[in-house]
């Protein structure tokens, strides 16, 4: 069963062609799954996809930052292979999307398109996957399984039947139904090569700490002290988002079980914050890869995928995620469950609510924090989900339901399992 990898294409847009690009995006927005430019629904193994345009901006030192096009995918298998699939599905239509980008081949062939996309692909420093190894195919299959089992249980009037007997009948039904039979086997494990690579990666942090240990501790403390001094001077202004901005965002929100969230902002000026953000992102990357690997990002169970993407050599950072429910409940989870984690990264962003020692305060200043996130949110009209009716918890429960079809159970276990139906 393949692993999930983030696909990120980041390209500068030629300002003269930006207008044509926004037209293309408007066309895609009509139907992200089936639009003629890049029909996400035709890409096998894409959980989520989005395309967004970042308009030209001016850096903190007055330097112009060119507009950018950002394509993100959360895909099964290697991002490299998915890029090829993208070129095959998009074909010549990709020229309309990326034609506005600087460095796009003038007479594009398949090879030239692929070469361009590879060149513009960026490795993700910090990426979260709700459950590594769970493919789109598995998720959709297990959703079908739930529907079929619910129907079966209702039809057969299994209420009142003892748990083990009910389970036996359900298993017999699955066995006799060719389109469900696959569910009797547990999903295959992650490929060995991936697990080996991952295990190796897991050692990097402890090894690094071991090697530089004595030097790292004072360095971290010194950096933290400098951060603290900056924090004391920091007087962020509490600004509310404009009604127009909120409207542009809410128009796209709350149509499905989950929403796409994209936010971006400037990193605070100075080398201290540069040092912090450049070390924190890989650190978080390590944590999401090796600690938060089972259905929960430090206690938040409503995030399918999330990632941080540095732009313009870390002058800006973009955060993109797919979360269940409303933005309000997402924000509340942030504040109530992982305020420290948000502070760690976002407090390096300009205008973030005042923090203490990098971890405290910040997000816990409820309204200020919510307004900060809203103001930095980027409308993302072209956003695709392969399973718009499922929350991460639904997906988990479906997987547990399937897992319970195999193996031995006693009456008590069978009872618990039946409750998942």
């Amino acid at each position, binding site marked *: 069963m393949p692993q999930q990898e983030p696909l990120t294409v980041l390209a500068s847009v030629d300002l003269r062609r930006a207008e044509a690009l926004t037209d293309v995006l408007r066309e895609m927005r009509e139907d992200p799954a089936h639009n003629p430019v890049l029909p996400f629904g035709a890409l096998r193994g894409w959980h989520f996809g989005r395309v967004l345009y970042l308009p030209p901006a001016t850096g903190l030192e007055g330097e112009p930052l060119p507009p950018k096009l950002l394509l993100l995918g959360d895909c099964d298998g290697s991002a490299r292979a998915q890029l090829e699939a993208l070129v095959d599905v998009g074909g010549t239509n990709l020229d309309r999307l990326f034609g506005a980008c600087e460095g796009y081949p003038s007479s594009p062939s398949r090879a030239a398109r692929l070469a361009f996309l590879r060149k513009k692909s960026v490795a993700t420093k910090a990426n979260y996957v709700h459950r590594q190894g769970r493919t789109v195919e598995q998720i959709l299959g297990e959703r079908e399984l*739930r529907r079929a089992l*619910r129907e079966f*249980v*209702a039809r057969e009037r*299994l*209420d*009142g*039947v*003892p*748990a083990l007997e*009910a389970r036996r009948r359900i298993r017999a039904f699955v066995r006799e139904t060719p389109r469900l039979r696959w569910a009797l086997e547990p999903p295959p494990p992650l490929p060995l090569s991936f697990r080996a690579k991952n295990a190796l990666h897991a050692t990097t942090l402890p090894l690094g700490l071991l090697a530089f240990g004595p030097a790292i501790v004072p360095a971290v403390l010194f950096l933290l002290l400098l951060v603290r001094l900056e924090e004391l001077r920091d007087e962020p202004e509490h600004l*509310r988002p404009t*009604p127009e901005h*909120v*409207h542009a965002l*809410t*128009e796209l*929100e*709350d*149509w499905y*079980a989950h929403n796409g969230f994209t936010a971006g902002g400037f990193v605070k000026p100075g080398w201290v914050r540069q040092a912090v953000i450049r070390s924190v992102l890989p650190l978080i990357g390590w944590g999401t890869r090796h600690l938060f690997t089972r259905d929960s990002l430090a*206690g938040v*169970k409503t995030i399918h995928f999330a990632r941080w993407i540095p732009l313009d050599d870390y002058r800006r950072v973009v955060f993109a995620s797919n979360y*269940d*429910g*409303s933005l*309000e*409940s997402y924000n*509340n*989870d942030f*504040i*109530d*469950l992982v305020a420290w984690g948000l502070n760690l990264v976002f407090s390096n962003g300009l205008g973030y609510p005042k923090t203490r020692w990098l971890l405290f305060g910040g997000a*816990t*200043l*409820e*309204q200020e924090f919510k307004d900060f996130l809203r103001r930095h949110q980027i409308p993302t009209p072209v956003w695709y989900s392969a399973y718009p009716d*499922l*929350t991460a*918890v*639904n997906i988990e*429960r479906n997987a547990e339901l399937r897992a319970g079809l195999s193996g031995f159970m006693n009456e008590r276990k*069978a*009872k*618990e399992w*039946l*409750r998942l*139906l």
Partner: protein
Amino acid sequence: MAQAALKAWPTGVKGKKNLPPLTGDKLVRECGLPIAELAVDAADVQGLVFRGYGALPECCYPLLRIEEPERGRAFVRAIVDRVSRGVPAARTVAVQIAFTSLGLSALGLPQSILQQFSRPFLEGMVGAHRSRFLGDTGESSPKRWEWGGPSTPPVHVLLMLFAESAPRLEELLAEMRRTWEAHGLSEIRILRTNPALLGKEHFGFADGISQPAIEGYHPVSSRLHLVKPGEFLLGYVNEYGLYTERPLVEAALDPFGSLPLDVEGSPRRDLGRNGTYLVFRQLRQNVVAFRETLDALTRNPDGSPNRQAREYLAARMVGRWPSGASLVEAPHGDDPTKARNNLFRYHHEDRDGLKCPIGAHVRRANPRDALAPHPGSERSLEVNRRHRLLRRGRTYGPELAPDAVDGEDRGLMFIALNANIVRQFEFVQHSWLVDPRFNGLYGEADPIVGMDEQNAFTATIDPVPVRCTGLPRFVTVVGGAYFFMPGIRALRFLGRLPTDTKASS
């Protein structure tokens, strides 16, 4: 009452420490404030915050429109001394008043002040995203509303009149009508309520049992329900230890010094202090459909009706029995001796919803300790306290006799008070009631208020979950608006707004 609450505190529940109520020293320590500062200034708060006026069964809600700013302000000045406060408690009649954002604008409140109110209040209850979010679609869509919708006259003022008897109410209404007519306000409609159904709602259940208690006003209560005043009143500390966003006014704009000072110490005056947001939704209940659907779902194999099974299913949907007894405490049948009990929780008692279904209305509207983080813990309750509502609604329309069928309009004038509409009312409505995936469910909106045409409900688990499907909508929204219910001093300020503020904004 408070003493009883203390005694009834569950002792020795498995894996859980007993949590003493927050009082005295502890209160000071946890809030970092001396008690004097915490105590609610009840004389400046409209009484509805503290009581539902159960002793005044007669009630109606006139909806009015202000035609001209100065006359609107004169109306506010004329009525302010009639408005009932937290103390002293009103005895025979009570008058409360609240405004929509359009209403405040019509009084001449400068935009610079108005724009500091919360976003949902400014935007109003209707709007494409909000309607989708609140589940106000299809039959509940605002374009079909009888009031408060896009095609009905704008509402500016909500009066809430209460009286001990019908003649007293008519007298009060006549007096009020004379006052608003004298000041040129026009009457949009008078919403009537049903005094006979006090404490009960049309589907046949006791209502108004579970309410939060306000710290600094209610002397002692269980930690389960004791909530910081800032969750219900602006200008007080909320459950985050912060002050909820509220409108502050430059001292120069308050020449008469009507307003209280900003408790956070800025030189500005607090227009929000002692005020609250009032969410009003007229919810029509289709009692005939409710009974017929339940009846069809619970018939005996031979097709005859099964009254007991029907009542059982209805109780599962609500999460309480008709008397009010919780299904957690009385899983097998109604028990009127437990009717007012409200100290139960869900996690340790009934994690999987075997006694009270996960999808039952009361368990969704207030999951208590059932949700993350760490269900069953004090942390879970701490987060829960950020989503509480003070409910002050009343029923309207005649009660439907058992087995009768008619076409009368009946339902609930749903009123909820909160300091943060987004985090409290809208969150509860969307994330807990309307969302069909609440707490791991799939395809099940709230069985009572879920605004879905094809709802489902897992009624029992035996040992497989038994799901009722194809449930129609039982509750339809027919009107509504977000109001601000100011404190008394804020009312005085509004009545004395300078005439030329429009120009200065």
